[in-house]
């Protein structure tokens, strides 16, 4: 069976963690619109949005972008509002090792986790206690400045009796029973246990009430009259704070949500009976929740957030037909495989999800397969007999999915053939995400105002309280599901923006572009020698734009001389050869006026000008320049980007710490080669934090753990030394792009790299280091109550109690505005801290750094160095696919 071999080979090549295969998967990404994300005016909506499907793990905001939205407020600013469920599956997030021994009973060969799947990756991070090593925050990690604000959360208290314990038992059967179903049925039906709250996987039994004896012998009779002896032996007694309990609580809540007639897909629960239909785009959105139970600062909390599952009312066959019409038969099979492989499908006749691993073009529905009992049957007959389904297209190929046995990780993967006509696609393909209209509709539907979100949460809580079965389940476990938790946060003081000869207090910290118009930027280089490449058709537009650019440049203090304008044909090759022909080392910048947002224009130009022939470049779409009445704001935005690319500084904020270097690190996957990770490293090289040193590397790896930090860090320290004649007293590193379950590796592997580079850099007093993990995706949400309704909290809201974790030095910060939708707080976890800054100072410094992203005159959701690192890795991962030249390292060439 060569097809099979092929599948296997591919499967392995594609996924380094073979254990993952066949497991129904889905991952999240927010459909957010981030102003700062795309090169402002090149309007690469296509590139930007297709990124959604390719990058899941750290879900940096890629969004629905149009040139208009990129230039103008109030774009989006929805900063990660709602999570869309269901995306091309990826092995991206956290390469968890599956630690099986976490919860094992002594003699059982089989553990609870092994049977139930794997320990959840996010739970793995819970065991990483970094706070205990940080003496200055051991007792108190809360700040003090700012105005207190009362916040409502999406967290619900879960109360347990004081002395509550979970009892773990090991169950053996004599004679031994193989069937897990049978084991469970026999145990559950026993009188002794029937009224007790229990969770049982066939081997390990959890009870909330202790049995009288340490070892209990029970016997049950099968329906055949055979007697089976069950020995139930106590193995452990666990306090409520144990991670095992958290896992058991999750199981309980999963049961409860099922009782509320929700369906589990992946890890979340959805209500298909209340769909939001978008029939004109063949989409169905199922509302639902993502839930979790975990130990927060002082107590156990249940958290829930609204989530949507995107389903397409389109069978795979219909999708293929559409594709066939579009591309024609030439290259159809390849296109089809490229588009479909990796997607999760739902089958019509059961509630299962499968990942498409291959397409077998040689098998047809009229072919036969062997049923489990050994008889041969055609697919057509099988579906007719089994499900009363008539397969209409007898010529369709078969989708192949590798199934993984749940019980035994070593078993060879089995294959399932699925009929395209009977499979529905979930998630959005790149073709769909590039459809701006569609994405707008989807985002519109999924975006929930704080009030809307709050209402959904209240309804969920209400449903749990009212449902008899749910209540019964909770009661038998001794759990009390409480009400929505409120806590007090603080709004830290707003920041002043320092311009040349002026300090301005912006009217809105979310957007100070208006203030920018009247004041000069901090420093620029004048642009004397530069090229503009455009097509013949764009000549007039270009001239108009140029005069506009010079005007706005002038008021900013950015002197723009006349460029050399080169007119070329409308092909990527023509643009590229024009650049090659007219380039000379004195050219400071190349601007390309692109006729379309076809990716190959942008990619080929960026690739050439970032590494082969390093010079800052600026791509702009003709369409953007044609926008009526927008020319001034477009030109302003471009002028600012060009200034940065030439090494200029736009604005600053007051940084009380002298001699502080801040660093941002981000990691993402290469778009073409999933085996490659792109690591971006951006460090400030002046005390004012306005100039940056940016490095990027492609590393062959299966993890998102950066490997080359030492080289980068030493490079950055050298740069700092050159500019400041000394080493920075403090270095604070913000690390983004961390997958679930990687915290431990980060602490053990990345922190030492950074630490050794700062110590080695100096013979006497070395710089003090802090490392902070930044997460844009976190469970808690915060709302403020205003006039009987709820709203997003004000900018600069810090939460450092109750919703935090006891074992971490952590806090939440809301630094971005969300005009529509609900704001997502950013979670900061200080995993290493030599600097010993007061928590208050750490929080405020972080807030200050969120003001410094030069692609957006306003606050953003993460510290600027992280956003720069992200922008850099994104450019490399999507377009360049190799390391940019070192010559560009001193400018923000990737904006």
């Amino acid at each position, binding site marked *: 069976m060569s097809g099979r071999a092929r599948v296997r080979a591919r499967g392995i090549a594609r996924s380094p963690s073979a254990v993952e295969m066949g497991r129904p998967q889905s991952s999240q990404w927010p459909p957010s619109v981030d102003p700062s994300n795309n090169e402002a005016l090149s309007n690469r909506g296509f590139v930007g949005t297709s990124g959604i499907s390719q990058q899941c793990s750290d879900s940096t905001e890629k969004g629905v972008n149009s040139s208009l939205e990129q230039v103008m407020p109030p774009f989006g600013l929805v900063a990660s509002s709602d999570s869309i469920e269901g995306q091309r599956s990826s092995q991206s997030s956290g390469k968890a090792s599956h630690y099986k021994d976490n919860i094992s009973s002594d003699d059982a060969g089989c553990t609870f986790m092994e049977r139930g799947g794997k320990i959840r990756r996010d739970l793995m991070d819970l065991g990483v206690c970094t706070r205990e090593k940080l003496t200055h925050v051991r007792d108190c990690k809360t700040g003090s400045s700012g105005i207190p604000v009362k916040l409502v959360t999406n967290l619900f208290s879960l109360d347990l009796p004081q002395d509550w314990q979970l009892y773990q038992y090991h169950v053996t059967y004599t004679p031994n*029973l*193989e*069937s897990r*179903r*049978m084991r469970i*049925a026999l145990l559950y039906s026993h009188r002794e246990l029937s009224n007790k709250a229990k969770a049982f996987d066939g081997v390990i039994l959890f009870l909330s009430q202790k049995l009288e004896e340490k070892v209990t012998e029970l016997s049950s*009779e*099968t*329906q*055949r*009259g*055979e007697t089976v002896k069950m020995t139930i032996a106590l193995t452990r007694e666990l306090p409520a704070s144990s991670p095992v309990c958290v896992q058991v609580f999750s199981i309980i809540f999963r049961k409860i949500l099922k009782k509320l*007639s929700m*369906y589990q*897909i992946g890890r979340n629960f959805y209500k*298909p*009976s209340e769909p939001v239909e978008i*029939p*004109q*785009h*063949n989409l*169905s959105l*199922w509302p639902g929740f993502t839930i979790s139970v975990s130990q927060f600062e002082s107590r156990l909390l249940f958290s829930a957030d609204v989530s949507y599952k995107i*389903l397409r*009312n*389109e*069978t795979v066959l*219909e999708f*293929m*037909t*559409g594709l*066939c*019409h*579009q591309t*024609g*038969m*030439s*290259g*159809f*099979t390849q296109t089809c495989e490229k588009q479909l492989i990796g997607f999760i499908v*739902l*089958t*019509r*006749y*059961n*509630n299962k999800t499968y990942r498409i691993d291959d397409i077998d*073009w040689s098998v047809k529905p009229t072919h036969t397969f062997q049923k489990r*009992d*050994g008889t041969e049957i055609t697919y057509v007959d099988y579906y007719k007999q*089994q499900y*009363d*389904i008539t397969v*209409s*297209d*007898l*010529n369709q*190929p078969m989708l192949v999915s590798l199934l993984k046995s749940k019980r035994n990780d070593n078993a060879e993967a089995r294959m399932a053939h699925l009929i395209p006509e009977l499979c*529905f696609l979930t998630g959005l393909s790149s073709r769909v995400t590039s*459809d*701006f209209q569609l994405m707008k509709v989807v985002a519109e539907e999924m975006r929930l105002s704080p009030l809307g979100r709050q209402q959904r949460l209240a309804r969920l809580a209400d449903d749990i309280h009212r449902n008899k079965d749910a209540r019964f389940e909770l009661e038998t476990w001794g759990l009390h599901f409480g009400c929505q938790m409120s806590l007090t946060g603080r709004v830290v003081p707003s920041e002043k923006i320092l311009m040349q000869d002026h300090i301005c207090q912006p009217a809105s910290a979310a957007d100070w572009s208006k203030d920018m118009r009247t004041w000069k930027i901090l420093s620029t280089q004048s642009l004397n020698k530069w090229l503009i490449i455009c097509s013949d058709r764009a000549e007039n537009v270009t001239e108009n734009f140029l005069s506009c650019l010079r005007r706005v440049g002038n008021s900013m203090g950015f002197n723009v001389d006349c460029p050399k304008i080169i007119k070329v044909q409308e092909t990527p090759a023509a643009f590229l050869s024009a650049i090659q022909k007219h380039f000379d080392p004195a050219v400071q910048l190349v601007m390309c006026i692109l006729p379309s947002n076809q990716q190959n224009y942008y990619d080929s130009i960026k690739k050439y000008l970032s590494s082969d022939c390093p010079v800052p470049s600026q791509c702009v779409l003709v369409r953007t320049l044609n926008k009526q009445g927008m020319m001034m704001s477009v030109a302003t935005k471009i002028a600012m980007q060009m200034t940065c690319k030439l090494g200029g500084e736009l604005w600053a904020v007051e940084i009380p710490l002298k001699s502080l270097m801040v660093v941002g690190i981000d990691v993402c996957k290469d778009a073409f080669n999933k085996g490659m990770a792109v690591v971006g490293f951006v460090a400030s090289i002046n005390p004012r934090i306005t100039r940056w040193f940016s490095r990027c590397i492609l590393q062959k790896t299966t993890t998102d753990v950066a490997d080359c930090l030492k080289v980068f860090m030493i490079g950055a320290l050298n740069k700092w030394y050159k500019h400041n004649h000394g080493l920075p007293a403090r270095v604070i590193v913000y690390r983004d792009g961390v997958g679930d379950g990687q915290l431990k590796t980060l602490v053990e592997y990345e922190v030492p790299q950074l630490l050794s580079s700062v110590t080695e850099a100096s013979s006497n007093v070395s710089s003090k280091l802090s490392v902070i993990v930044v997460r844009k995706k976190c469970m808690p949400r915060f709302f403020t109550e205003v006039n009987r309704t709820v709203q997003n909290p004000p900018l600069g809201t810090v939460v450092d109690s109750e919703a935090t974790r006891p074992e971490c030095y952590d806090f939440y910060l809301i630094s971005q505005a969300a005009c529509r939708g609900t704001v997502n707080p950013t979670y900061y976890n200080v995993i290493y801290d030599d600097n010993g800054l007061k928590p208050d100072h750490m929080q405020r410094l972080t807030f200050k750094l969120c003001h410094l992203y030069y692609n957006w005159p306003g606050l953003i959701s993460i510290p600027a160095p992280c956003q720069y690192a992200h922008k850099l890795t994104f450019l490399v991962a999507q377009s360049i696919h190799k390391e940019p030249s070192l010559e560009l390292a001193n400018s923000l060439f990737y904006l």
Partner: protein
Amino acid sequence: MEQNNKECSSSVGGFQVPIKRIIQFSPPLYRQRYNFVKNLVDQHKPKKVADLGCGNALLIQTLKCHSCIELLVGVDINKDKIGSQRCGLSPFFGDYLSPRELNLSIILYHGSAVERDSRLLGFDLITCIELVEHLEPRDLADFPQVVFGYLSPAMIVISTPNSEFNPLFPAVTLRDSDHKFEWNRKQFQTWASDVANLYNYSVEFTGVGEPPAGAGNVGYCTQIGVFRKIGAKATESCIAGQHDEYVYKMVYSISYPSLQQKEVRKYALVNEVSRQVQCLRRGYVISLKILQDDASERLSDSGLITFSGPVFTELEKTNIEKSPKPFSFGNKFYVPLERLFAYPKVNRLCDNVDTMRALIADTMKLNRDGSAVKVDLHDE
């Protein structure tokens, strides 16, 4: 149906019990019984089906995919058991994405097969799979009167163990500890024929679970009687005269989305129409391109792979070709509703062009006189 001699698991009532037995049925005997009912459903297309003694409702789960069924009812006296497998009865994801043509409700009642409940009147098929042998003599005596006399469905299926088969099992007197008796073929057939005569039914005997070769003439392991009401289906008319008697306690009820529900049909239609429109639009855009580009470049190189897309019958093809063609005007692309109506998948969802227009009007853009769907010719 084959047997193997080895240690194996066999099932009773869907409950897997591994026991050393000489005979194994493949598929398992309970499956064979369910398949028997399934085949009957396929043949006779009943609309309303009830299963008395449904246990964990596995038979109902098996039957729910049949498109002809509109009401499925399960009754059992064991309350714990009825509830145990409920999640298998709720609609699948697919039932939401591709709704059934006809309504379907599934209801489970807690109650006894020998109690009268008027909600079970007027059924097309009532099954009593491995039920009668669990009845106490008094209940067994009442049973015909309730099921045949009162409920009086068009068809009844009764299955019960055949005791003649039992000697083939090692040391088994009764197959289940709850069995009150097990009949041989003669006993069952006599009982069944008497009942059939009394209530004006015809009966045919058959079974599932063939004995192994050389076992002699012991008959099927499970014997089955299929009863059919003689004369017209007069059930509907007599319901009206009956008093409502609600004895059973409803423990579960679910109704499936179906095209009979207006909103569901509307979404299904808009879905189908927009898919068809997009498909035609893409085809149109490509045909324009080909005219410009010179078609020679687009020759197929596929060779081995055949992928045809939707298959139409000759009649459907002519219907489509006869209908008015899509056209473009300016940057807009128009597909006449007549054209859309000619496509079988659209046609299935609406009776005529007017109902189609009414259903899609508030979600899709139409041209001024409402005769065609209007979309942008090019993306963006």
